[in-house]
């Protein structure tokens, strides 16, 4: 399957701030190829704030982390491929619908926002267990498998 757009959970926003994630099989090079193949990349404003909070807890050169974070933020904001989602009325309606799933507050916001895209890349098992909710949730491993199948079918 070929994906034209993806909604990224915070885990997959971190690499744009020069912070990699410990997901099995993940590499910047592979991620770059995935991102390159997409027409649109969607992220939540919440993920940007979460990424900032996480970046403050990293015990390496603080000024470099801050500088790179700031650079990543301006690249994300300026790249035409990227859509940064704020919280809109349509998201709020879905939030109310999904609130009963027992997810966390931010989880529910991100899930609600990702419905407009229809596919969410995440490693969160609570998301990955959800079915028939108007958004397909997929992890890195499944994404690579599906993309490989899509490439063979081309």
């Amino acid at each position, binding site marked *: 399957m070929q994906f034209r757009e993806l909604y990224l959970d915070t*885990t997959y926003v*971190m*690499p744009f701030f020069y912070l990699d994630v410990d*997901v099995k099989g993940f590499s910047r090079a592979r*991620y770059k190829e995935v991102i390159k193949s997409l027409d649109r990349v969607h992220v939540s404003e919440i993920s940007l704030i979460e990424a900032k909070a996480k970046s403050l807890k990293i015990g390496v050169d603080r000024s470099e982390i801050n500088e790179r974070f700031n650079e990543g933020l301006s690249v994300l904001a*300026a790249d035409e*491929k990227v859509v940064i989602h704020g919280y809109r009325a349509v998201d709020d309606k879905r939030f109310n619908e999904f609130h009963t799933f027992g997810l966390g*507050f*931010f989880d529910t916001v991100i899930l609600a926002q990702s419905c407009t895209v229809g596919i969410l890349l995440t*490693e969160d098992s609570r998301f990955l267990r959800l079915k028939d909710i108007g958004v397909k949730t997929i992890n890195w491993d499944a994404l690579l498998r599906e993309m490989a199948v899509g490439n063979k079918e081309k």
Partner: protein
Amino acid sequence: MAEYIVKVGKKGELYTPKKLRLKIDMAPGDEFVAVVEGEEVILRKRKTIVNVLEEEALATVSAEELKEERSVMEKELLER
């Protein structure tokens, strides 16, 4: 530091020497940001998210830690 002569065309186009194009890996469609500081003009390659991923990461974070971070932030927000 290397210096290059860039000529200006009739309509304001900037003509870059091949040596410069090769050195900075300039390709058609690339965009630059011109930063003006007094009499100096610095051209900075405008990065995309793909360019960012071509560079090395400073550190690695765990997906589990991110999950925990989310819980902490939620707690802070909801207890306000």
